[in-house]
């Protein structure tokens, strides 16, 4: 099981703040592809040109990051704090 969280403008575009996936897609890249395959807004967000940042277990992660059962993945736009 992988818990996935969506923040800020991504959450608004997808219409979803969080979900739990039963299957482990293997890597962050695999997860992205699985989400994009849902089509519509999911495809626009995850296979589109805009930058989408990823954190695994609350630390920034790259596309090759391997996912383990129980991991938490957060997807979000470039940050704008400060």
């Amino acid at each position: 099981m992988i818990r996935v969280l969506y923040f800020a403008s991504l959450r608004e575009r997808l219409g979803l703040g969080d979900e739990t996936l039963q299957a482990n897609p293997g890597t962050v890249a695999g997860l992205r592809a699985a989400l994009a395959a849902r089509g519509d807004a999911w495809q626009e967000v995850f296979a589109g040109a805009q930058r989408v940042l990823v954190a695994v277990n609350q630390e920034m992660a790259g596309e090759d990051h391997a996912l383990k059962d129980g991991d938490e993945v957060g997807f979000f736009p470039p940050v704008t704090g400060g």
Partner: protein
Amino acid sequence: MDIEIRVQDTPLDALAETAPVFAGNPAVGGVVSFVGLMRDMNQGDRVSAMTLEHYPGMTEKALAAIVDEAAGRWQLEAVRLVHRVGNIRPQDPIVLVAVASAHRGEAFRACEFIIDFLKTRAPFWKREQTADGQSRWVEARDSDDESAKAWADAKRP
């Protein structure tokens, strides 16, 4: 080294948060603080209010990592970092970074380093409301990425 990091949805009193950073520590020779405030204009539009979202759990970790990195690069006596979340109005302080050290060089550089990295690595997102009632997400700036990158490239200590 004294580190205090806080994310809060209550008003931030920048002056009250700065004083404890140097109180009672005779090793401190200099204190530098940065206060980020909400303006009433952004990208040519009048802004009436802002909401700051964050990633609870990751926010605190990210801020702690940034402060740790600063403490590793410079000799510091104390760092206090307080960041607002929730509803903000123009002129409200959004963030305070206060750094105390033996000498001013470290304090100036560490303070700037921390705010530059916070702007590109800490999971906060601003949603602003313009005066005509529209609501929009604030876009990240290329200049912030460049500032953060410049620290990696910089040769000066």
